[in-house]
């Protein structure tokens, strides 16, 4: 098709400069990864069409001279023909392309976490003060034996006879979600690695291989094996505390991924072990996995390659029959199942998938936990819940719904300055997160943001301790899968049923 340069799509935001305040320091020109600003001889001028409202310019404008506002020129409001739909039609008619974007869906689906209330103690069964009393958050991810064999030594002290399957020890029930080097910058990965080490938790390489600089962080890293098998080799499998087989991702269930050739520079090429400039294509399925039996084969291929010393995690997207799927995954030998809800993030995914495929993590978790208990195999694997855990409250509710730990991805990027503009796929991230442009990556200081990630997870952990204390339990273990401590609000019977919780008041 011939392409006309004229576009119907007008700028979504206006980058306004107060020229009375502006001192022409040009910091905004430097800071904007999108090229919104330029110097017009005597003043800064804005190309509004390039602004994505990522917030970098006004954060770093020393004079507070910049404001980013929604373009007041409206597309006539229509509840049926919404602006985003109209714009996508224009976009696709102008390019013929599949519309893609970064981050999770922007659709306004019901957020079940916001309709779940937590219990607390009053009078009977007293609450506990976490400031004075020990409050255990330590969590072990991995298969737990269905029974323990115990011997006693000559003094009568018990000795554990059973050999424990390998576990990941977490000091607090959080992990960083899988984000590959390629989808995010190395500095962003380093910030998470530093924080994970300081916190005693783990980060996840995603499917982009393990950069040499991260090798020393092995005790705080899960390495991933996805369908593209990028950077996967024997030593890689043995370099972390666990291996994760990625089957699906909440933002894009059932489809693969493409890291476009222009993002495959020398360093990413080395880490992914593919030539510079070629597309890194992860096919939709693993071409050796067409059944639960095939999954078992890969799980045990990994276990053989790691001498049965690492737990193997399987990551799947939450989809309609998730309970049966996870039951199969557990029976296939997975030690950890990572379930990613439909609001989870991504570096790039087609909007049609992101906005319309999958189910909420809350419902998936409740169903999976219930199913595994019914089948008597809940101890066979730990569950990690993901898909936009936005606060410690979401984390607590996820754990009470049945998760052993939660994963955070988008929240970790928000720590690094992300304003969730959803343009990760373009590689122009002004915050140096989802970009490989050296001048942008350089500005993300791993030490500073490692410390801020540490602060966030510490704060969330303290909040969880407060909540546990209020509920009168002194260990996160005691809350796990304890749906009796949850009540629903503004939910239908069907929704309450799916969540396995009672309505508030009952």
């Amino acid at each position, binding site marked *: 098709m011939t392409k006309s340069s004229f576009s119907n799509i007008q700028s979504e935001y206006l980058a306004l400069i107060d020229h009375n305040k502006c001192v022409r320091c040009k910091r905004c020109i430097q800071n904007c990864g999108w090229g919104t600003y330029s110097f017009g001889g005597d003043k800064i001028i804005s190309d509004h069409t390039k602004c994505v409202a990522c917030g970098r310019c006004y954060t770093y404008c020393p004079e507070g001279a910049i404001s980013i506002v929604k373009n007041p020129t409206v597309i006539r409001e229509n509840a049926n023909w919404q602006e985003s739909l109209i714009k*996508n039609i224009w*976009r696709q008619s102008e390019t013929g392309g599949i*519309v893609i974007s970064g981050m999770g869906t922007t659709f306004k689906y019901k957020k079940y976490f916001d309709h779940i209330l937590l219990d607390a103690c009053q009078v009977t069964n007293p609450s506990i003060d976490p400031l004075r009393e020990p409050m255990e958050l330590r969590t072990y991810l991995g298969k737990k034996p269905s029974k323990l064999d115990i011997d006693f030594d000559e003094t009568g002290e018990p000795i554990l006879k059973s050999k424990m399957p390998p576990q990941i020890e977490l000091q607090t029930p959080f992990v960083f979600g899988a984000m590959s080097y390629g989808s995010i910058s190395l500095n962003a990965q380093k910030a998470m690695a530093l924080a994970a080490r300081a916190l005693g938790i783990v980060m996840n390489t995603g499917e982009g291989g393990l950069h040499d600089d991260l090798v020393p962080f092995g005790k705080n890293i899960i390495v991933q094996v996805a369908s593209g098998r990028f950077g996967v080799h024997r030593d890689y499998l043995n370099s972390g505390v666990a291996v994760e087989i990625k089957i699906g991702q909440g933002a894009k269930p059932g489809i693969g991924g493409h890291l476009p050739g222009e993002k495959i520079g020398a360093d990413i090429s080395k880490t992914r072990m593919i030539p510079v400039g070629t597309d890194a294509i992860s096919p939709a399925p693993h071409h050796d996995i067409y059944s639960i039996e095939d999954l078992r084969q890969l799980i045990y291929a990994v276990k*053989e390659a790691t001498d049965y010393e690492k737990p193997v995690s399987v990551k799947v997207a939450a989809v309609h029959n998730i309970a049966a799927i996870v039951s199969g995954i557990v029976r296939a030998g997975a030690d950890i199942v990572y379930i990613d809800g439909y609001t989870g993030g991504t570096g790039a995914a087609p909007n049609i998938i992101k906005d319309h495929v999958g189910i909420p993590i809350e419902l998936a978790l409740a169903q999976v936990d219930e199913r595994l208990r019914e089948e008597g195999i809940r101890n066979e694997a730990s569950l990690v819940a993901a898909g936009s855990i936005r606060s410690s409250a979401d984390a607590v509710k996820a754990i009470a719904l049945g998760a052993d730990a939660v994963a955070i991805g988008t929240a970790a990027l928000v720590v690094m300055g992300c304003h969730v503009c959803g343009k990760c796929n373009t590689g122009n991230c002004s915050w140096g997160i989802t970009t490989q442009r050296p001048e942008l990556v350089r500005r993300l200081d791993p030490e500073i943001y490692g410390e801020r990630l540490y602060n966030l997870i510490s704060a969330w952990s303290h909040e969880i301790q407060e909540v546990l204390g209020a509920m009168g339990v002194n260990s996160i273990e005691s809350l796990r899968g304890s749906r009796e401590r949850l009540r629903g609000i503004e939910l239908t019977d069907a929704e309450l049923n799916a969540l396995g919780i009672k309505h508030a008041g009952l």
Partner: protein
Amino acid sequence: MITIDAAGMHYKELNRLIREGIKKGIKKFFLENVNGQYYIGDGIKGDDVVININGIPGNDLGAFMDGPTLIANNNAQDNIGNTMNAGKILIKGDAGDVVGYGMRGGKIYILGNAGYRVGIHMKGYNEQLPIIIIGGKVGSFFAEYMAGGIIVLLGLNDSDEFDSEYFASGMHGGAIYLRKKIDFSKYSKDVELYEADENDMNFLKKYLIDYADSFNISSEEITGKPFYKIVPSSARPYAHLYTSA
């Protein structure tokens, strides 16, 4: 040197014995009565380790392998050389489905035929050049998403044509050499066919001789015909599929 009788042995035990043997410095292994045990050679290292297999090895033979040589004296099953990094696998019979998935280096030589999905997402990197040479023919979905390396199809078993469907779809790197002309119209639009030139043949020669020597067949018999070469039309087949929201 060690001989292990694998009769009735679970793969876990067999592979543990192999790993322990390698740790002790044993270089040559003879496995007898192998009967479908999975993962032989999975994740093992050592360029001078050779494992000779009598019987039929099971799936994932040489998965994640990094250096050793595996010799299967009969047929072998699925997923040979899965994500293999280096080493050599010889199959003196037919191979099953999914040979060399995600393979990044080393060589897989198959004397007979191979099944579906051979060479899927095979990839090369720097000096690592994975090579698969197949004496007979292959099933469908051959070289899907192939991103690097070399696959040679010899067609020595006198079948007139390679009749696999979905041949090299999504291929975006590497090269395939065919010893027989194919009806090109049947195959993926992502690739182009050329007659192999002198440079190609010089490049291939040492591998073909190595292949012939490995199976004690005459290399003249193999090289005596013109070859055809299939290469991807683009290193970025999906570059124009998307538009940013």
